[in-house]
Structure formats: C-alpha cells, structure tokens
C-alpha cells in the first residue's frame, strides 16, 4: 500500500520500505507473525505488535535481519484516516501477477490516493503523479468512474482544466463535492492553483488533528519504554 504500490501505479521509481495494510484479526496476526519470523523481523520503536494498537490506527514497524533482506523496513497498518475498512479495501484490491507466478495484492489506486493524503510533504507530489499516470493511461476512452476519480483527485491544474473542457457535465455535477472544479471549468488557472494549495493545506491539517491523540499515545509508550524497570 505504500511506496511499492506507488512504483506499480507509476508514481515512484524507487522505494526502500514495504508497507502492508492488513486485516487485524487474531488468526491473521498469527500468520503475519510467522511470516515476519521467516524474515527475522524485530519490532522497532513503539507501539508493540499487538492487535489493540493496530485497531486504534497505529502502525507497527519492523526491521528484518534475514541475510537476503538485512535492515529492510516493513510497516504494518490496519486503519488509515479517510480510508475504508480493510474488508472494503480487500474487495477493491488490484492483483498483479509477475512472470514467475508471484502475485502482488495492491490497494486500489483510488484507495491509495486517499491513504496518501497525509501531513507529509512527500506524499503530495506522489498523489499528483499517481493520478496523472492513470489519467494519461486511460484518458482516450474514460469510463464514468474514471472521470469521477480524476475530477475528484487530479492535482494538476492544466489537466483539470483540460478535463473540465472536455467533460463539462460530470464536472458541473461534482462541483458540490469539489468546489475548485468551478475554477477549472472557468479556466481560471491561477485561482485553481491557489485553491489546490488550500485544499492540500486543509487535508494536511486534518491529518495532524487526526494524529494528535495517537501521537500522544506514542509519546506515552516511548516514555514508559525509556523508564528503568
């Protein structure tokens, strides 16, 4: 669901850690423990690898010590801000199969874009590239679903204006959900750039608010960990 998924969808070219969205159930956690044991993975930092932390929205971080994956980082999450439950993510997943028969289960592009709306600088250019790649791939014969996705998620002013000019009806229908589409339809490029910046600022602030109590929990866990027994 992280950088590796971005590679497959066309945004990133290189990512060093691997992020997994998982179903937080006792049985699944047992299977995950076995897989992590194969990788000789240890939990780093906080929180500990427990169901209750995953269910609250924390990520658990691992570092692998297997000779073929020394120091590789693996992060595991089950709940993300603004993103549907795991069961829905799983229903919408994309499966890729490599020549050697290995299957890769990816979070859908629509869900990945939602998951990337964080407070971090680096996620925003990534979102832009993810949606651009999809747009350029399918824009010749778009479905209604694709048009809706692009209207709601494109972050490239030039492409939003192109799209609005080519598909004015769906654009107008979505202006309630995304008011800046009016600016795209009117061809007001500089206002559109400002509105996109503001949209990003509000999302980043919402992410900070969402994380405030979780960060406090992490701080407490760190303090507890550092206290002598």
């Amino acid at each position: 669901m992280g950088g590796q998924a971005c590679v497959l969808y066309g945004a990133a070219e290189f990512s060093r850690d691997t992020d997994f969205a998982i179903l937080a159930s006792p049985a699944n956690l047992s299977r995950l423990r076995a897989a992590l044991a194969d990788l000789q993975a240890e939990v780093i930092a906080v929180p500990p690898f427990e169901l209750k932390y995953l269910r609250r929205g924390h990520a658990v971080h691992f570092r692998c010590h297997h000779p073929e994956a020394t120091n590789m980082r693996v992060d595991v999450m089950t709940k993300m801000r603004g993103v549907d439950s795991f069961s829905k993510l799983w229903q919408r997943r994309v499966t890729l199969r490599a020549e050697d028969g290995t299957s890769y289960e990816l979070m859908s592009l629509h869900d990945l874009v939602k998951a990337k709306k964080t407070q971090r600088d680096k996620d925003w250019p990534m979102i832009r590239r993810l949606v651009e790649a999809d747009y350029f791939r399918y824009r010749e014969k778009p479905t209604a679903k694709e048009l809706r996705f692009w209207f709601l998620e494109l972050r490239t002013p030039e492409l939003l204006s192109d799209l609005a000019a080519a598909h004015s009806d769906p654009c107008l229908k979505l202006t309630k959900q995304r008011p800046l589409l009016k600016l795209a339809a009117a061809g007001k490029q500089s206002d559109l750039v400002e509105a996109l910046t503001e949209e990003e600022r509000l999302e980043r602030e919402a992410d900070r608010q969402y994380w405030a109590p979780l960060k406090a929990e992490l701080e407490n866990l760190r303090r507890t960990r550092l206290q002598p027994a």
Partner: protein
Amino acid sequence: MISAEQLVGEEQAEWYSLTPMERWRESSKLWEVYLAMGGSLDPEPDTQSPFFDPSAPSSRLVDGWPGLRVVRRGGV
C-alpha cells in the same frame, strides 16, 4: 489536450506509459545497482511522519551514510 511529455518531460512520460509489471522490472534493476553499490535497505528517518521516533534504534552508520561513499569529486 496537453501531452504527458509536455507536462512532465520525456523521462517521466515514459515511466507513466509503462505497465505496472514493466515498472516493477525497471524498479528491480535500480535495486540491483543500488545494492551492488552497497546501498542500505534501511530508509532515511521520515521526520514528518507521525510515527517518527527520534529515540528509535537505527542500523544507520553514525556518519549518516548508508554504504555508498564519494570516492572522487569532480575538480573545478
């Protein structure tokens, strides 16, 4: 209609035009070179992440370099 090349340049447009598995293969090539040069699998600290913990143990070397070293710099 603006083209991918006009918007993001030829290199990025070429990347966009690949299929997911083609991107996977290209990314794997980068990995091979990176690891052959001694690159570390340990990512840089993500200081903007809500998960960032400055006290977390790191496998990184104290000078902050993963495995690559500058062995020659271009002269002026």
